[in-house]
């Protein structure tokens, strides 16, 4: 059981900044995210896109914003459970919570802050009638371990970065790799496109374009696919079909936690502290809704700050907490590090 002061569900910018504000109040945080790395949408969808409305940053790439937030919260030693989805929440007799992930990791804290953005990222699945039948029997949407495909015949569908990058990786591992895309053009880093071109020239990757998968067949396990190219059907005998069409967010298991939901978001009390209808559970950032809500990173930062103040009062009702200015108090990291303003030099001029 992982124990902390605040369990933060979602490691996007809002969740990450909450660690900093909690840290100023001596509260420890542990973040859970279904993606394998922190950063949420900023890291997953648009790491190379510039953001212009972070106060004082005239321009910052989304990926750099995440890196800077990670650097900023480092002194407060947050814990991370990554690549796991918060599945279930259990309220304890003392009012605290246990959050359990889909992989069975248990977390315990008196406060839970949901900073889940638009939800859990799930793979987008192509529209093929019997696709579900072959899931885990030859159809994989996420590649976790390339070794699984050693000496196997693999067919990847998709035209973006992940389809290109995994084709490159698997070309070294699998017996054969076929890449199918609806267009002749691929969208990805130039380097990846060039690498795939080179592997195609060396006959290490077969590319079929412009084409689509139209049928799946198998016995107990998927064993063949029909690829349709300009009206002509080709059959490929394969062991694995990996459609890589990106990820789409779904509110997911959180929707079943008894929280008040409106417009696919969690209703909170914005006049006070962004608490949900369940005391002790907060919702901050894009995942919440209230009159006048704006889904902006900078609003998420503000919400995270007020949430931490309220969490502190919930944890220590007897203590008077004071607003701290970092210019005055500096930052005392949980790792023993200390940042503070340089002392003024007082010296007599003779």
């Amino acid at each position, binding site marked *: 059981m992982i124990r902390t002061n605040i369990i933060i569900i979602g490691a996007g910018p809002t969740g990450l900044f909450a660690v900093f504000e909690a840290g100023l109040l001596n509260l420890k945080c542990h973040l859970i995210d279904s993606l394998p790395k922190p950063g949420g949408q900023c890291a997953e969808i648009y790491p190379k*896109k510039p953001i212009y409305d972070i106060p004082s940053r005239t321009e910052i790439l989304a990926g750099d914003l995440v890196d800077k937030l990670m650097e900023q919260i480092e002194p407060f030693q947050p814990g991370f459970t990554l690549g796991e989805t918060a599945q279930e929440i259990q309220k304890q007799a003392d009012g605290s919570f246990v959050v359990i992930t889909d992989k069975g990791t248990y977390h315990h804290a008196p406060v839970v802050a949901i900073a889940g953005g638009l939800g859990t990222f799930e793979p987008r699945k192509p529209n093929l009638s019997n696709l579900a039948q072959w899931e885990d029997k030859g159809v994989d949407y996420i590649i976790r371990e390339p070794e699984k495909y050693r000496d196997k015949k693999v067919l990847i569908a*998709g035209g*973006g970065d992940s389809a290109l990058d995994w084709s490159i990786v698997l070309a070294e591992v699998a017996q054969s790799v076929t890449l199918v895309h609806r267009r002749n053009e691929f969208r990805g880093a130039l380097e990846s496109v060039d690498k795939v071109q080179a592997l195609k020239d060396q006959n290490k990757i077969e590319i079929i374009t412009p084409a689509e998968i139209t049928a799946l067949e198998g016995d107990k396990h998927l064993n063949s696919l029909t690829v349709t190219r300009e009206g002509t059907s080709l059959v490929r005998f394969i062991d694995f079909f990996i459609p890589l069409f990106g990820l789409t967010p779904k509110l997911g298991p959180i929707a079943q936690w008894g929280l008040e939901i409106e417009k696919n978001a969690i209703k909170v009390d914005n006049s006070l502290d962004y608490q949900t209808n369940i005391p002790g559970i907060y919702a901050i950032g894009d995942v919440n809704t209230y009159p006048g809500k704006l889904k902006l990173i900078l609003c998420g930062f503000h919400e995270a700050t007020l949430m931490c103040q309220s969490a502190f009062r919930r944890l220590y009702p007897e203590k008077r907490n004071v607003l701290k200015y970092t210019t005055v108090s500096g930052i005392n990291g949980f790792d023993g590090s200390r940042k503070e303003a340089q002392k003024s030099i007082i010296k007599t001029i003779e």
Partner: protein
Amino acid sequence: MDIKITVIDRSGVPHQLVAPTDMSMNLMEVCKAYELHVDGICGGMAMCASCQCYVLSDHPLSEKSADEEAMLSEAFHVKENSRLGCQIPMDKKLGGLKVELAPE
């Protein structure tokens, strides 16, 4: 100057929307402003296709950018008249525009 456009939602219900042309808004943003169910996950960067729509009227839309072409080539339910709402800036030439939201 405002223009009037029609957006047919996923249940087939048409909505008449008034869209400003001087706020650098795109079709996805206008739909969101009227609380039609359009996620606009990527915020309008032609990177998610959650604002895909079918253009039903005969308006002079700007050419698709390479990014939009690429995204549509990876999206589902794509038709000849598919566009990404976020790539359609509101312009006075688009008065009377009629679109239908594509399935999610």
